[in-house]
């Protein structure tokens, strides 16, 4: 083989080298890997003897291999023994099998003893045969409620008859086969009732979330909202949503303003057609209406709204295609631990747990009570003031403790928490325009320094590289479900200080205008926390915070921030209990708000709208929550920004489209058309209409605006009205756009 070849990659790799290279790199790689023999090996060795560039290349390849090994050598350990859980579940299955075997033998022995009675019941059974309508196939559990009211745990291969009900609790997912080949995946917290099997299966859905895959038969599902007929060979996701009860992460982000108005009284059903088609019939449309693949329909007895959804692109749509807990046998999805870092501090309880009151002056207990009292103050100003006084009192109270007493560090950590809470109270005042940002910044900085000192970190020194695993992380990793309260006092204090140190830095970032190295330092801290808290809700929270600080680091880290938010949205909450689910929903909503805001900021309006759309898909009943209102407001602002930008670039058609959409959403019939914001938008629309040469509409807009214009705007509007007068009635392009916008 000629090793001084110009073709380093074999022809099957479609290589097209453009610069001639006298050395065949692939052949050198093979030599280095010991994959050459005989003549080929000799040829390479000869080349290496005679060619200095070839030797250089070989050295570089060796260096490359070395670097690759070095880069990949760190071995990571899972945070717990993964196999233990799998094996434990398998042992459970095995125990059940053994028990079933034993009870089978026992039954055989007593069978003779109850022969006559059994024969009698058997005869009755033969006289009234029942035909099984379906079978339980797999899953993590469920309960079968028979028509007699008797309840049995749903087991594999168990027959299901007409009028049976199946319910699932938290963590229980079941797959059943109905009729010939219809598969129903019943999610946790669901309830369905089987109605009949012929001529085609039908059942009733009372609660929860289902996935249905039909084969050759149609299936009918009834619910209070209406009837869904699922065509043969279709896959559908059906959901009776509940308001999410999400807990906004106020420890990390300022809560958006509360919404007005009440949520819809009548709960809807949501059906997403993943493939095939369905037909929906309700009171409004008793004859039914067909919904095809890629659409999501939300309907009540009297209303119906269908929208197209991006099945492949959405981060949140349940496509019912991946492997799921419904196919699992034995292993249950686990709840996520809440370590206890996200709740508001209870200073007295914390002081008790950290032993602050043990053989110490009464002043410490009094200062902690003062801080706790401050936390209860309803006004932000009062809260900030009382927390500041409490912090000072605590400082003075623990000062007499011996220098080696670890409770001095605990006291400093508690001071940090007081500063952090004071900073949050001041942020509430900043939002109300009653306080300067710099005051809040100073409080967060004081918190950061207090946490540094509690952790005995040199605040003047450069930020340390990722530290080795702290003791509290080892204690948390040692068992499942370990919370803050299970840790030693020193570890409780260290964990609270570490977590809140990063949180304080995040708040500093939101209050400072000059961004230096802080985002990188804070990102590193949150990344470490996320790894060490990976199996808790706090791990998920640290990932959200990680995304937020990366976003502040500027355009270079934008993609990483998007990845962080996407990861939050991808977290499955299967098997989670109510408290952890509420926190997770809050984190997901905050991630969606951040993602929408980020895309709007970088002027990717389509993606901002897609993120907003994901919010409505995931939380259809949360439209009046602060998070939903914030998303609406971001999208509105983005729409106006797009319109103004399009107007500036002379893309009048796009500008008219965006202004029209905004006005349609914000000026319902009867609304004031002369409100300042609306008037400003209408002036923009008028300019865009003039640019588009739509004389008819431009004159109409100009006349309407002139009617309500104040003196300061009059001159500008008259000039625009004069321009509108010169235009033709309507261009063909404008007419088409108007029709499209009206549609």
């Amino acid at each position, binding site marked *: 083989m000629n090793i001084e070849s110009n073709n380093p*990659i074999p022809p099957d*790799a479609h290589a097209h080298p453009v610069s001639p290279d006298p050395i065949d790199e692939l052949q050198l790689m093979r030599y280095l890997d010991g994959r050459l023999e005989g003549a080929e090996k000799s040829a390479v060795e000869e080349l290496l003897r005679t060619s200095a560039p070839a030797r250089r290349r070989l050295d570089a390849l060796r260096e490359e291999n070395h*670097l690759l090994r070095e880069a990949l050598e760190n071995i990571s350990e*899972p945070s717990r023994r993964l196999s233990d859980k799998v094996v434990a579940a398998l042992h459970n299955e*095995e125990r059940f*099998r053994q028990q079933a075997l034993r009870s089978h033998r026992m039954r055989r022995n007593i069978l003779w003893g109850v022969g006559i009675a059994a024969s009698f019941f058997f005869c009755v059974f033969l006289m009234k045969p029942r035909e099984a309508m379906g079978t339980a196939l797999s899953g993590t559990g469920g309960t079968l409620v028979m028509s007699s009211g008797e309840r049995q745990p749903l087991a594999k291969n168990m027959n299901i008859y007409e009028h049976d009900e199946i319910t699932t609790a938290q963590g229980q997912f079941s797959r059943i086969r109905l009729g010939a080949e219809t598969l129903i995946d019943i999610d946790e917290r669901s309830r369905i009732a089987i109605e009949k099997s012929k001529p085609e299966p039908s059942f009733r859905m009372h609660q929860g979330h289902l996935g249905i895959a039909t084969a050759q038969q149609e299936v009918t599902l009834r619910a209070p909202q209406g009837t869904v007929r699922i065509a043969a060979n279709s896959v559908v996701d059906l959901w009776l949503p509940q308001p999410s009860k999400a807990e906004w992460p106020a420890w990390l982000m300022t809560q958006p303003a509360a919404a007005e108005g009440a949520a819809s009284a009548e709960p809807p059903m949501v059906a997403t057609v993943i493939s095939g088609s369905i037909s929906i019939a309700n009171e409004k449309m008793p004859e039914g209406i067909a919904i095809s693949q890629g659409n999501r329909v939300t309907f009540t007895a009297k209303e119906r709204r269908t929208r197209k959804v991006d099945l492949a692109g959405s981060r949140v749509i349940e496509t019912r295609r991946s492997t799921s807990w419904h196919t699992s046998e034995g292993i249950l999805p686990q709840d996520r631990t809440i370590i206890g870092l996200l709740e508001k501090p209870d200073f007295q309880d914390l002081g008790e747990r950290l032993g602050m009151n043990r053989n110490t002056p009464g002043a410490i207990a009094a200062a902690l009570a003062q801080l706790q009292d401050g936390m209860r103050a309803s006004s932000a100003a009062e809260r900030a003031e009382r927390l500041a006084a409490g912090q000072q009192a605590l400082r003075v109270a623990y000062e007499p403790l011996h220098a080696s007493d670890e409770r001095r560090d605990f006291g400093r950590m508690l001071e940090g928490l007081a500063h952090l809470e004071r900073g949050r109270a001041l942020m509430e005042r900043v939002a109300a325009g009653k306080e300067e940002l710099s005051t809040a910044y100073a409080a967060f900085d004081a918190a950061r320094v207090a946490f540094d000192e509690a952790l005995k970190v040199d605040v003047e020194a450069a930020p340390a590289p990722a530290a080795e695993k702290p003791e509290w992380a080892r204690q948390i990793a040692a068992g499942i479900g370990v919370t803050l309260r299970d840790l030693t006092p020193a570890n409780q204090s260290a964990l609270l200080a570490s977590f809140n140190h990063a949180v304080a830095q995040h708040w500093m970032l939101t209050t400072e205008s000059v961004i230096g190295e802080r985002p990188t330092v804070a990102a590193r801290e949150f990344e470490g926390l996320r790894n060490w808290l990976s*199996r808790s809700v706090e791990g998920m929270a640290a990932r959200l915070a990680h995304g937020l600080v990366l976003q502040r680091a500027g355009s270079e880290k934008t993609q990483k921030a998007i990845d962080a938010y*996407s990861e939050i949205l991808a977290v499955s909450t299967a098997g989670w209990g109510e408290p952890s689910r509420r926190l997770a929903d809050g984190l997901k909503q905050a991630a969606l708000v951040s993602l929408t805001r980020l895309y709007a900021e970088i002027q990717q309006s389509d993606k901002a709208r897609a993120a907003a759309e994901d919010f409505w898909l995931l939380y259809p009943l949360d439209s009046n929550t602060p998070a939903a209102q914030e998303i609406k407001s971001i999208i509105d602002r983005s729409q106006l920004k797009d319109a103004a930008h399009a107007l500036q670039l002379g893309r009048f058609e796009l500008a008219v489209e965006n202004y029209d959409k905004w006005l349609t959403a914000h000026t319902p019939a009867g609304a004031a058309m002369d409100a300042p914001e609306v008037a400003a938008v209408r002036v923009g629309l008028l300019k865009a209409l003039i640019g588009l040469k739509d004389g008819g509409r431009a004159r109409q807009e100009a006349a309407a605006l002139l009617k309500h214009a104040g003196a300061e705007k009059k001159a500008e509007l008259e000039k625009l009205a004069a321009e509108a007068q010169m235009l033709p009635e309507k261009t063909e392009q404008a007419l088409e756009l108007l029709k499209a916008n009206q549609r």
Partner: protein
Amino acid sequence: MPISLESGLSISTITPGPSAGEDDAQVNLRQFAQFAREHEASIFTYVLRMVSSREDAEDITQEALYQAWRTWNQVDPEAAGGYVKWCYRIAHNLSIDTLRKKKPRAADDEEMERAADTKSLRPEEVYEHRVQAGQVQDCIQSLDEKYREVLILRYQEELSYEKIAEILELPVSTIETRIHRAKKMLREKLERKG
């Protein structure tokens, strides 16, 4: 911890036979438990490198072990690689599924692949300056999964080309080409990072 495919050649060599009162299913389960404990860390490391998320890696490793158990009786322990290869194959497929679900392939990756074919950045040009292992690690994470997996199996798990070919069910020549191309793309990324 490099894996040894040979260690999975015969499970009977690492576990004692049935104890009194044990049936086949119980013996199998005991053997599986030992196997799972021995290999969970190395499978986890491989998956973590692939998916870059500890949470996903833990879930995938667990799922892989569970699926491995469900198909335990279908594997020929005497075949090359035996149970270990089988388990890696499952973990690999689950990792790829997760990656595809999370992140569609970026246009940049295709651009980079084309660049690797048409541009010949020589290793001595890239490595003449001090390159940190951390930089290399970042660049590996940003490679397309089909290139990342061969580098991980070759340089983390230290597998031969033949063993990688068995796990990925590809010809050895393709593995060789992929490793070569992966390295070229890596150099391109390192060069761009400066």
